[in-house]
């Protein structure tokens, strides 16, 4: 029973992420990368242990993250409530080992740490329940 509910739930989450993905593409076409990133980060991490959902959400966040050109400009319009979740995705990006992704994540990581402090890193690393 529990597994069944989890599967249904996972389908619903995947549908929501697909919807999010379409919205992000349209925001990127309108040259609104920060709005796209906010949309990607909203509702993260998906409230499930299902790795498929987490990967799907990461793909969406990754798409928005790589579209950020000016990091300072991004932070001028990104509210502090997004900092903790953004840090978690930066570490997921760094764990891929992919060169362009890591370059971009490190660039944002430096600026984010200046703004949010070491506490933000601690919260990203220590949370083993709400992983992204």
């Amino acid at each position, binding site marked *: 029973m529990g597994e069944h509910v989890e599967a249904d739930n996972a389908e619903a989450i995947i549908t929501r992420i697909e919807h999010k993905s379409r919205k992000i593409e349209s925001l990127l076409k309108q040259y609104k990368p920060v709005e796209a990133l906010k949309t990607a980060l909203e509702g993260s991490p998906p409230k499930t242990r299902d790795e498929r959902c987490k990967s799907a959400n990461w793909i969406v966040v990754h798409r928005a993250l790589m579209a950020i050109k000016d990091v300072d400009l991004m932070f001028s319009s990104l509210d502090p409530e997004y900092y*903790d979740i953004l840090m978690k995705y930066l570490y997921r990006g760094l764990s891929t080992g992919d060169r362009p992704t890591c370059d971009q994540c490190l660039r944002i*990581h*430096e600026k984010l*740490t*200046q703004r*949010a*402090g*070491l*506490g*933000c*890193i*601690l*919260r990203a690393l*220590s*949370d*083993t*329940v*709400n992983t992204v």
Partner: protein
Amino acid sequence: MAAIAVHQFADCITCHAWSPDQSMVALCPNTNEVHIYKLVEENWERIHVLQKHDQIIVGIDWSKSSNRIVTVSHDRNSYVWNEEGSAWVPTLVILRLNRAALCVQWSPKGNKFAVGSGAKTVCICYYEQENNWWVSKLIRKRHDSSVTSVAWHPNNVLIATTSTDGKCRVFSTFIKGVDAGKPKKSGGGSLDAKFGEQIVQLDLSFCWAFGVKWSPSGNSLAYVGHNSMIYFVDQIGPSPLAQSVVLRDLPLRDVMFVSEKLVIGVGFDCNPMVFAADGTGLWSFVRFLDEKKAASSSGRSQFTEAFGKFYGSSKQGTSNDKSRAGVHDNCINCIVPMKESESTKMTSFSTSGLDGKMVIWDLKNQEDLLEYL
């Protein structure tokens, strides 16, 4: 300056406790011994060394009412020390633990003490007159991991615990014959619970929790998480009201209520942090207590600073990064209140840490904090 005295007692101090009149301090210099220092003509002199434990002592508490010292150690034992003449005589307390004891505290009346342990249990110990023996009763249930901190409610019955499973829990420790009659209902918690019954479980942190303390009235409590968060909880009971405050800096290890509206937190940032509640009861970070710590304005980024932390503390204080060179130069893991008399407000306290220093602080001349005292 908020720090009024700094003493280098050892290379590292695991914990310390004051005698009831605060003329003596007991501390563990990261060994299996307790050293007792006394202030003699402006100098701290070591007057006793308590040797009985086999491993590092991690908890010392000196009873306010009975001049007894209780110590707990990684060797899984606890001793109650009585001063007889000029010597301290230990009595072994059989805790029946299969893991290290981690923390200890006397109850406000001094007739019980609580020991948190790595065996996922809390021992409540009390003295049995007829057998001339300290008895340990275990709270076995509920904890899914090591108990890192215990704190007694002022009513002598409720205790709060924090654990490495991230939870903060409140239990009743009512023991027939020790706690005379049913205690009066005060604060939010219901007190007619049996021994070991859980009153509430607070599920706010997703990683290790440390350093729980009750406010002086017992109406609220505070504890910290290893995720750089501090939690304040009001109305302890079926529907508690919780607030989480996010820290910009490194996590805390221990907290202390100065008043209902003022909390000091100490930890890995080597500098006590001040938290205060405004008129509506909303808690927020005020500032660091040691003013030397300026906002990081140097050219070094926080990122390289983080690397400095990882590569050992030897860099700290010696590098040209003066922003972190405060009174303490390593993690502070213990904060103890110092009260001059019952009538006066508590304004001073002491901290000790891995740098082996014990620092005495006073808030009296901190004008911006006086309104919260």
